[in-house]
């Protein structure tokens, strides 16, 4: 059998023995049998591993410095032993059945009982067991260090402090209460019934013994609740209500103020939570206490952050289910304090002023070193200015850099290049919002190769309009490369479709040329998309469009005419293309009939003359043509 297997069997025996110890009395044969089996497994293990020392953490068992992994089995065992404050167990050869019985009887005691008795060793101490050494965790060290690992047992520590009724212990736990709760998640607190109950008992006890610490701990638990508000459902919240059982209405008044002061994000949900945890108490009384407290001791006008929070809160809660009592109280508190009347430290304004100061330094300085310094600082501001949407500043910066560039100031020439490269990088690798598009104009020269652009345009899953605009701005001389890449994509319908749509989003002369290029080479569907886009452009190329009218496609002709109808100067050319067609023996009559339909649909009244000509065509094979022309002229009342 290999060592791993031996070890696995050892721990299985340990688990089985523990289970029987939980279920049977110390002298029950089942228990004795499992201990005997455990003894055998221990002896086997000691042959390959001596000393046999098992390290325990909250979730792991470790032997010989290595964590044991076998799904939940070891984790569960580790958790069970950790909860009994056991840090490690060492078993040496010679451990007797009696010793093992004693050992298992102790560690299978309820956790609470072990903690109450002062730990496993304190109980074992009475009966000597030489061959089993248990090293225990010292939770007082935890208390000093505020370790997060004790979150799993701190419910018991609270209970213990209460049961001992020892002021020193209570104070010690109260001092560390904030750290405990800070490290706890909602499962640690409301995962079971026990912890809320322990906190409630602890607060109740503290209230009598030390009101100051009671206030502190109540505040800490309330602030924890506020910070976890988004993960607390109704069920958890109802468990938490118990925690606040010992609070009177004046305590709740204080709590509300604490929440407003200490919690940056004290919003409508926070206030709703507060209403819920305090619903057993008289809300008008709490609100009144809160109001008086602030009016007497706090000049709210001198607490701009709180005023702002209240203003935001009221703004957000209009029309919601918020308790009218609190709503009205908060409203009366800030009555007469206008947002502008509140003195606030405006971080945004500070940044703005700072940037303009550095800008002034770039503008009014002649010393090269100082200019370099200011330029270096300014470079660091590019990203944050953009992030803050400081568009006015970015425009001023750009303007100034161009001016100083003209003056030949080296630091500004260099900075302008960096600024251009910064914007280029945003366009190529991040994204610009619509309101940031003006920045594209500030890229003066490419810092990246043309291939980077072409790859972005033709290889990206989505076509970025800004990359396209910037490309046309920066590489007007290199369009042949662009067309080469475009030609390779002409079979990619999806790409073409999207590409045409993107081209339609900016009205640059160059886009018209590309659209025409695509039109000439694409299929009917894409052509129709191109025409849709062309219709929206400010300028049309009527010569190109008229040239396309000889197509067999009715739809294309109709769409072409529709666009051309926007340019009156091309009417004659359009009508000639549509109707000045020779049709010997009516061979082209279907085509002419379609064209008649087009001018009729488009109300192309300029076609009257052409229609009259058609209505007079002789020969029987032209009958349909004549009739349709007359019909349209009649509809238009020009017959």
């Amino acid at each position, binding site marked *: 059998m290999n060592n791993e297997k031996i070890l696995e069997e050892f721990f299985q025996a340990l688990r089985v023995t523990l289970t029987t110890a939980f279920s049977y009395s110390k002298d029950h044969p089942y228990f004795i049998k499992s201990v005997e089996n455990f003894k055998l497994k221990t002896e086997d293990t000691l042959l390959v591993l001596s000393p046999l020392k098992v390290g325990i953490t909250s979730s792991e068992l470790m032997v010989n410095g290595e964590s044991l992994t076998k799904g939940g089995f070891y984790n569960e065992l580790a958790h069970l032993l950790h909860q009994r404050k056991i840090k490690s167990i060492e078993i040496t050869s010679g451990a007797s059945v009696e010793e093992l019985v004693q050992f298992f009887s102790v560690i299978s005691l309820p956790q609470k009982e072990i903690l109450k008795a002062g730990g496993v060793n304190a109980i074992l101490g009475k009966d000597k067991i030489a061959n089993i050494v248990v090293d225990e965790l010292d939770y007082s060290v935890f208390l000093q260090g505020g370790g997060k690992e004790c979150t799993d047992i701190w419910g018991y520590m609270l209970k213990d402090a209460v049961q001992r009724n020892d002021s020193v212990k209570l104070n010690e736990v109260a001092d560390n209460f904030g750290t405990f709760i800070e490290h706890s998640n909602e499962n640690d607190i409301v995962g079971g019934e026990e912890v809320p109950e322990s906190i409630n008992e602890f607060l109740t006890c503290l209230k009598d013994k030390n009101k100051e610490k009671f206030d502190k701990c109540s505040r800490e638990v309330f602030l924890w609740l506020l910070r976890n508000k988004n993960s607390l459902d109704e069920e958890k919240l109802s468990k938490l209500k118990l925690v606040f059982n010992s609070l009177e209405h004046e305590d709740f008044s204080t709590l509300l103020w604490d929440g407003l002061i200490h919690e940056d994000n004290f919003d409508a949900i926070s206030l709703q939570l507060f209403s819920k945890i305090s619903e057993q108490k008289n809300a008008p009384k709490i609100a009144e206490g809160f109001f008086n407290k602030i009016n007497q001791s706090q000049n709210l006008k001198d607490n701009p952050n709180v005023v702002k929070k209240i203003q935001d809160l009221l703004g957000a809660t209009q029309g919601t289910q918020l308790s009218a009592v609190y709503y009205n109280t908060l409203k009366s508190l800030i009555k007469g304090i206008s947002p502008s009347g509140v003195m606030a430290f*405006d971080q945004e304004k500070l940044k703005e*002023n700072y940037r303009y100061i550095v800008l002034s330094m770039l503008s009014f300085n002649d010393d090269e070193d100082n200019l370099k310094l200011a330029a270096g600082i300014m470079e660091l501001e590019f990203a944050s200015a953009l992030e803050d949407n400081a568009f006015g500043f970015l425009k001023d910066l750009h303007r100034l850099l161009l001016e100083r560039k003209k003056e030949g100031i080296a630091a500004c020439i260099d900075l302008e290049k960096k600024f251009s490269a910064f914007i280029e990088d945003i366009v190529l690798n991040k994204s610009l919002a619509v309101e940031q598009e003006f920045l594209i104009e500030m890229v003066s020269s490419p810092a990246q190769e043309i291939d980077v652009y072409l790859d972005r345009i033709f290889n990206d899953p989505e076509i970025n309009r800004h990359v396209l605009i910037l490309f046309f701005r920066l590489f007007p001389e290199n369009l042949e490369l662009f067309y080469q890449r475009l030609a390779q994509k002409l079979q990619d319908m999806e790409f073409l479709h999207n590409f045409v749509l993107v081209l339609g989003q900016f009205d640059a002369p160059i886009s018209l040329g590309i659209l025409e290029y695509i039109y000439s080479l694409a299929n009917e569907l894409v052509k129709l998309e191109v025409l849709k886009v062309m219709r929206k452009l400010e300028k049309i190329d009527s010569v190109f469009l008229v040239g396309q009218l000889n197509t067999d496609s009715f739809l294309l002709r109709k769409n072409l005419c529709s666009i051309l109808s926007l340019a009156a100067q091309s009417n004659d050319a359009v009508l000639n293309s549509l109707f000045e067609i020779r049709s010997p023996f009516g061979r082209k009559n279907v085509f002419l009939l379609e064209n008649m339909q087009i001018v009729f649909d488009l109300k192309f009244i300029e076609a009257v003359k052409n229609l009259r000509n058609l209505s007079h065509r002789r020969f029987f094979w032209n009958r349909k043509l004549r009739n349709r022309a007359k019909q349209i002229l009649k509809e238009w009342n020009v017959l």
Partner: protein
Amino acid sequence: MFSKVEVAFRSLLSCLQVIKMYGSSHPMFQKSLDSLALAFDEALALHPEIVIGIIGEELAFEKDILFELGKFLRPAILYLKDRNIERFAFSRGLNKEELRIFIDFLARPKEDFKGDSQVLFNLAGVEHISVGKLKIDGETGSKNVSKVKRINLYDSSAEKIGLALNGVLNSEKIDHLALKFSLSNIMESLSVQHHEMLRLATVKRYDVETYAHMLNVAIFSMYFSSRLGFDKANVLNIGMAAMFHDIGKLFISRKLLHKSEKLTDQEFGRIKSHTFLGAEMMLRYVDTLGILPVVISFEHHLKYDSTGYPRLPLLRKQHIASSIVAICDVYDALSQRRGYKQDYSPDVVYGIMEKDRGTAFEPELFDRFFRFIGFWPIGAVVALSDGSIALVREQNESEIRRPIVEIVSPIEKKRKVDLIKDYSLNIERYLNPWKEGKEYLALEQ
């Protein structure tokens, strides 16, 4: 970038807890040490050196006090302070073994922390970590700081400011953590016993201390901004920035005042440009002191209605922090005895400043300043209408001219009087502490 340092420091404290709990041979510690080494690798990739200071009960890194982080790690911070550790510096090249020795060392009982920790480290081959105390007098902002200690705090802070200002004037690196420590202590003192600190600022200006004005402006600015409800970090930053508000003037005067020839027009122009110059100097310290010193140096003469200087086309309206420092600067300068003028009494100071209410000073801010500081400042010696002499003890914000005073002479009348409750008494005049008020000032000490 900043969060990497936070993560590293959190990992350090978590590793310290693990070693205390499991011991250094436990695999859990090894695991925790691995994460710690990784966290420092990442943080040091961004900074060649990470210096973390413990200021009061907070952590400081570069220009920021990590109030949020400090809140979570307070017990651990106290543990370190208990072992006289207030400053850590980690530099590139740091390895896991050095971290292991360091953590092992920190986990020792308090009693083992004797002698020079740095020497111990060096002996153990730790080259990339240094620890120690911040180089200040060890004052803390504890609530029971005695009056004498507060005076020492004031004096040592003035000295610290002197060093820092000289550092900036010589373009040298400054010990910003020590400076923050001093100011943080003052801030704590202001929150606990603001009367005492304000009194010091009132009285101490009569000592001919070169840097007392800078410190006073910092104290008044911190007090004022905290009363306006600004959060701790902003209050501290305003205090720091206030200390450097006139750095440009110091630089110019140091250069020009030693010149024996007549100053040229250009040199006069330079003196006026001290705001611009000061901002430029503070720009070199943005990494450690933040941007506020730049802004305040630049804007403190700009005035509320933007009619001051520098008058440049690109400027914005004065930031509230600059407005605060501007008020405190003028207030302290007018109150101070200078070579070229007598010191003015508080009523004269108020009268002079009130003329600029609405032009140089934002009216609401101006009113609040005097509501908080008082018309008659705390510690002022005043003659009452019944001929008795009193010291101003507390302000009445609802009536700034009628504070709470303590009659100190004649001795048989010694008592506290709240002048808004007792209208039979008025303050008649102010007694100059350098002249007729001198003997009564002694009663204050």
